[in-house]
């Protein structure tokens, strides 16, 4: 083995332990939660949640300690800590805390396998945190699998429920199929360049490789398109979201999806930007299809989780627009596209998790997931109605919520790159989307309630939703909060 290592010139690389501290803390927390669950009596299993929350806060502390420490490259160049990585590690951890808040009462009251759930959720979150720093094909592959595989189990956590089983099976089959397709694309990129590091792939790409690289990018994009539920690879998403426990649906729709996008952004901006002319049309087509089909089907939904699923598909389309704007050599407009994608993902995560939180809060204790039953919520629970309305308005992209800026920045980036077709399609879609989001808001505020009793919302969930909504308003008032972060995350 040593001889082989010498032959290829490999040396054992020194590990920068500080750079991987967030991952270490999160991994340790996951292990502690799993072991602690063994020893906790049945009525104290819920302690796994505060334990997980403490671990995520510890991870956030480790991330904060890395701010301002400059770019760090470790594990032989496969793992980089830069502004982009730190921003998304932070986003994942904040979303992780939100999902924990959504999960707490759901799993405690529902008598699910609480310890196992929190362990799996932390593992999947770890995948997202690793993905932010992944700078070679192996790490990207491992990170995306680390996000997905615990997700398959979480989707089927309600073992006695046939719908949950079905959700898990669909997610699993589509998930493994997409990894295989993605790997095939990666193998072609490796064949063309002989490199696994993204920088290396970019440096060694030559015009002669073009046919192979086009195929490679095509397969990689198809693989990721499943993960981010882009049309026409979206079939699993609504079924899986509906069938799986709702906090898991929130997880899949935010952390899992953003994880896929982070991988896609890193690949497209770090490895393949110089051949963007060949693959930009793939993204343009995907973006147009995803926005339009997602919104059209969302118009007909009567179930709030399915509405959020289809609208989440459409939201993926807006981010894909940003990816369809990359041009070789056009630094200024590329940077703008990059920043708009980063801002969109960060804001999308918070508003989508918030909407799921409100749906879960409404559905507990005999409430339902059907949009019919939301009528007159304003009279029953003004706070919950206002919060849900806030999240939906943000998703629709109307002021006074942060979702407005998310859409505006992508739109401006499209104008800047002179992709007027994409800008027009995006604008039309935003109008269609506003229709079904605001229909729910109208139901809550202007229709009569059939029931009178207020919907009781647990304190954890109330605080989480309040903070998320406050953050969205704050970003709307002062967009510099996110644009500053996006500028620092430029590669």
């Amino acid at each position, binding site marked *: 083995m040593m001889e082989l290592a010498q032959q290829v010139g490999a040396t054992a690389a020194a590990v920068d332990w500080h750079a991987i501290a967030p991952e270490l803390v999160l991994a340790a927390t996951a292990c502690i939660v799993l072991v602690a669950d063994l020893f906790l009596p049945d009525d104290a299993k819920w302690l796994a949640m505060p334990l997980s929350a403490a671990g995520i806060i510890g991870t956030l502390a480790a991330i904060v300690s890395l701010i301002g420490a400059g770019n760090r490259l470790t594990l032989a160049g496969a793992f980089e800590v830069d502004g982009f990585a730190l921003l998304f590690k932070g986003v994942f951890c904040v979303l992780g805390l939100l999902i924990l808040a959504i999960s707490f009462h759901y799993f405690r009251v529902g008598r699910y396998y609480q310890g196992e759930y929190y362990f799996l959720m932390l593992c999947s979150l770890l995948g997202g945190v690793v993905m932010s720093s992944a700078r070679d094909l192996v790490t990207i592959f491992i990170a995306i699998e680390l996000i997905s595989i615990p997700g398959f189990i979480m989707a089927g956590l309600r073992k006695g429920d046939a719908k949950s089983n079905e959700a898990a099976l669909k997610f699993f089959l589509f998930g493994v199929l997409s*990894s295989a397709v993605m790997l095939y694309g990666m193998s072609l990129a490796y064949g063309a360049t002989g490199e696994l590091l993204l920088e290396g792939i970019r440096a060694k790409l030559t015009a002669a490789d073009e046919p192979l690289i086009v195929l490679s990018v095509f397969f990689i994009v198809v693989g990721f398109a499943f993960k981010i539920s882009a049309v026409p690879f979206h079939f699993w998403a609504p079924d899986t979201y509906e069938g799986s426990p709702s906090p898991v649906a929130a997880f899949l729709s935010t952390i899992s999806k953003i994880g896929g996008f982070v991988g896609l952004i890193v690949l497209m901006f770090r490895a393949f930007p110089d051949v963007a002319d060949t693959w930009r049309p793939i993204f343009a087509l995907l973006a147009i299809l995803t926005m339009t089909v997602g919104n059209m089907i969302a118009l007909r939904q009567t179930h709030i989780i399915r509405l959020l699923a289809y609208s989440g598909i459409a939201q993926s389309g807006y981010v894909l627009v940003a990816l369809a704007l990359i041009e070789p050599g056009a630094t200024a407009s590329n940077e703008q596209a990059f920043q708009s994608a980063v801002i969109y993902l960060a804001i999308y995560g918070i508003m989508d998790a918030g909407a799921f939180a409100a749906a879960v809060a409404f559905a507990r204790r005999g409430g339902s997931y059907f949009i019919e039953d939301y009528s007159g919520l304003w009279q029953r629970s003004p706070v919950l109605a206002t919060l849900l309305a806030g999240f939906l308005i943000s998703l629709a992209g109307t002021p006074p919520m942060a979702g407005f800026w998310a859409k505006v920045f992508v739109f401006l980036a499209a104008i800047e790159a002179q992709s007027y077709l994409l800008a027009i399609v995006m604008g039309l879609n935003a109008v269609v989307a506003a229709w079904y989001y605001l229909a729910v808001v109208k139901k809550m505020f202007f229709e009569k309630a059939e029931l009178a009793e207020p919907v009781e919302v647990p304190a954890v969930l109330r605080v989480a939703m309040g903070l998320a909504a406050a953050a969205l308003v704050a970003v709307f008032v002062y967009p510099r909060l996110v644009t500053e972060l996006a500028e620092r995350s430029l590669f």
Partner: protein
Amino acid sequence: MSVAPGFYLVLAGLMFAIGVVGVLVRRNAIVIFMFVELMLNAVNLIFVTFARQQGTVDGQVLVFFVLVVAAAEVVVGLGIISLIFRYRVSSNVDEINLLKR
């Protein structure tokens, strides 16, 4: 004795294509999953071939990761499929249609 790398790549391409067709055509969840495994092995063959051709070990290292991840997928996947089988005594994906399409 050596075979030109091109033949391995064609073989791998065929294996991958058979895998894709199998996934699309077969209806039994376990068989679909087996075809996905075939696709993964086609990818492994490509990585090893290119690694050999270029004289680097990176590709071979990736194959080990793919193998480990595939093993993890088998564990989770068979767990889910056996759970479904326990309730329905069938693993035909066409009969698993409770959720609206």
